[in-house]
């Protein structure tokens, strides 16, 4: 059966509306599940109607591809651990970029669009698609710890990147003048793929939230470019929605680190001021404590705020934390969670982990909501977070992290920091919080320490 292009376009319009309603649903936890289903329905409409397109003459390849992709996708979605969500999203970003790349390549070799706009769009889809694909694979490898998460690079890397980018643009220009040159096409594809690798390799672990958000945006823009190539409204609209989404998240992440996007992508941390001597900050001022002592403090606390960081995810301690919170609540203590925007390895990562541990979402407070309450908080428990609690960001104008918004945990009456050692966080700075008069350090494995506190609290 075949239907006219008009009907296909109307169906695409319906699916675009469903996507928009779907994203709108995501603005509230209550409507979010339904929103996701609406978006999925939109995808269903778009796919079914496309199968009736007159250019489609055989279905064998399509069926094979959908089965292979569907099985892989379903397995990934079912098996992934919540702690590994950043890796999965990185991988899916990459696949999205790869798909747009392949679609643009197919359109190029079909030679259907010799006009200037079509060729430029093809070039853009190939460039952005390939950068997204290889860049995301590097991000995935770093997050999965297949390769070292530390920044990697070589002298002159920026020059090489600039040359690759200029070369890609020149290649697109050449294709506009000579549309039928496959060698130039492949040269463009290879340059873009290498560029993607080199752009993400120098970016370190704690900057991953920015990179993932940015690659998310790229995958949308690549889809949009593919839409320009094919003259397909569904792709254009949907791709730009996703592109906008990624850009906003990127912006939020950058703001939460008080760094510009260029600084994250091309700079290391700013090297303002002289290096602080760790011994000088900590010497003689660190108070080490025990689980029993912490339990005694918690027993009389009216209000406790838990500050989770990436260490919580690493230790898989989210369920243990929930147990501790339950015990305190049974004791009549008010418990809330303070979530810094860049806690974890992707936007919202901590919220998902705590939701998995069945923490009610109205107890997860963002930075602006929780900061004014620390002064009325008896105990703040910092679990695997470091730089986002460092008072230097507020007080020391010479510090590289000065100006970064932080959680004001030091304003709480007592601060308990659960940490393996005094080692610095990603910024490589000592944290004067650890040396404050009202801070107690509980050294040990995050999960073990939390379990010990809970046991002591129950016995006490």
């Amino acid at each position: 059966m075949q239907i006219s292009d008009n009907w296909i376009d109307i169906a695409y319009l319906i699916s675009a509306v469903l996507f928009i309603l779907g994203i709108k649903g995501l603005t509230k936890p209550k409507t979010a599940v339904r929103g996701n289903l609406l978006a999925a329905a939109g995808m269903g409409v778009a796919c079914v109607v496309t199968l009736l397109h007159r250019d489609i003459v055989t279905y064998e390849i399509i069926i094979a591809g959908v089965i292979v992709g569907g099985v892989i996708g379903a397995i990934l979605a079912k098996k992934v651990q919540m702690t590994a969500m950043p890796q999965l999203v990185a991988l899916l970003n990459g696949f999205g970029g790869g798909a747009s790349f392949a679609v643009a390549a197919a359109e190029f070799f079909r030679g259907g669009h010799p006009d200037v706009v079509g060729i430029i769009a093809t070039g853009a889809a190939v460039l952005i698609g390939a950068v997204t694909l290889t860049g995301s694979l590097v991000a995935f490898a770093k997050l999965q710890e297949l390769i070292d998460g530390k920044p990697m690079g070589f002298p002159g890397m920026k020059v090489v990147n600039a040359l690759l980018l200029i070369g890609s643009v020149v290649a697109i220009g050449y294709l506009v003048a000579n549309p039928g040159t496959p060698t130039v096409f492949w040269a463009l594809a290879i340059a873009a793929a290498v560029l993607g690798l080199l752009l993400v390799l120098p970016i370190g672990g704690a900057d991953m939230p920015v990179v993932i958000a940015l690659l998310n945006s790229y995958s949308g823009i690549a889809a949009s470019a593919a839409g320009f190539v094919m003259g397909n409204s569904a792709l254009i609209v949907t791709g730009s929605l996703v592109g906008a989404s990624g850009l906003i998240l990127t912006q939020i992440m950058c703001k939460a680190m008080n760094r510009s996007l260029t600084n994250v992508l091309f700079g290391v941390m700013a090297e303002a001021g002289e290096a602080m001597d760790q011994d000088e900050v900590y010497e003689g001022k660190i108070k080490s404590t025990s689980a029993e002592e912490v339990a005694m403090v918690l027993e009389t606390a009216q209000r406790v705020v838990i500050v989770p960081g990436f260490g919580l995810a690493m230790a898989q301690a989210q369920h243990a934390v929930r147990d501790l919170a339950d015990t305190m609540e049974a004791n009549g203590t008010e418990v809330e969670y303070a979530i810094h925007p860049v806690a974890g390895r992707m936007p919202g990562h901590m919220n998902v982990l705590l939701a998995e541990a069945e923490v009610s979402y109205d107890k997860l407070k963002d930075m602006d909501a929780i900061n004014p309450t620390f002064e009325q908080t008896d105990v703040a428990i910092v679990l695997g977070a470091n730089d986002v609690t460092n008072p230097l960001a507020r007080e020391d104008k010479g510090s590289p992290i000065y100006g970064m918004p932080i959680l004001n945990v030091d304003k709480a009456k007592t601060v308990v920091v659960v940490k393996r050692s005094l080692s610095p966080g990603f910024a490589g700075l000592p944290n004067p919080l650890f040396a404050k008069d009202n801070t107690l350090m509980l050294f040990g494995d995050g999960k073990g320490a939390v379990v010990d506190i809970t046991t002591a609290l129950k016995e006490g």
Partner: protein
Amino acid sequence: MDFVSQLTLFVLAIFLGVELITKVPPTLHTPLMSGSNAISGITLVGALIAAGSDAGLLINVLGFIAVVLATINVIGGFMVTNRMLAMFKRK
């Protein structure tokens, strides 16, 4: 569709996207990302046309690759988003 209408759609959709996404609370940022991953799997539409056309082996191979990758995005993205969102409860 001519270039100017395409561009119009593109620009308007970006503005709409910005308006919508700024309203998504930080709590839901991870599902937002996996959900938008799924939605960007819309490339599947282009992939289906390439995979099912009679334009030659190379086109079909590229189309097949695109169908596989985009389907992983669509199925994986929507399923994992659903799994995550089901965890967000108020007690």
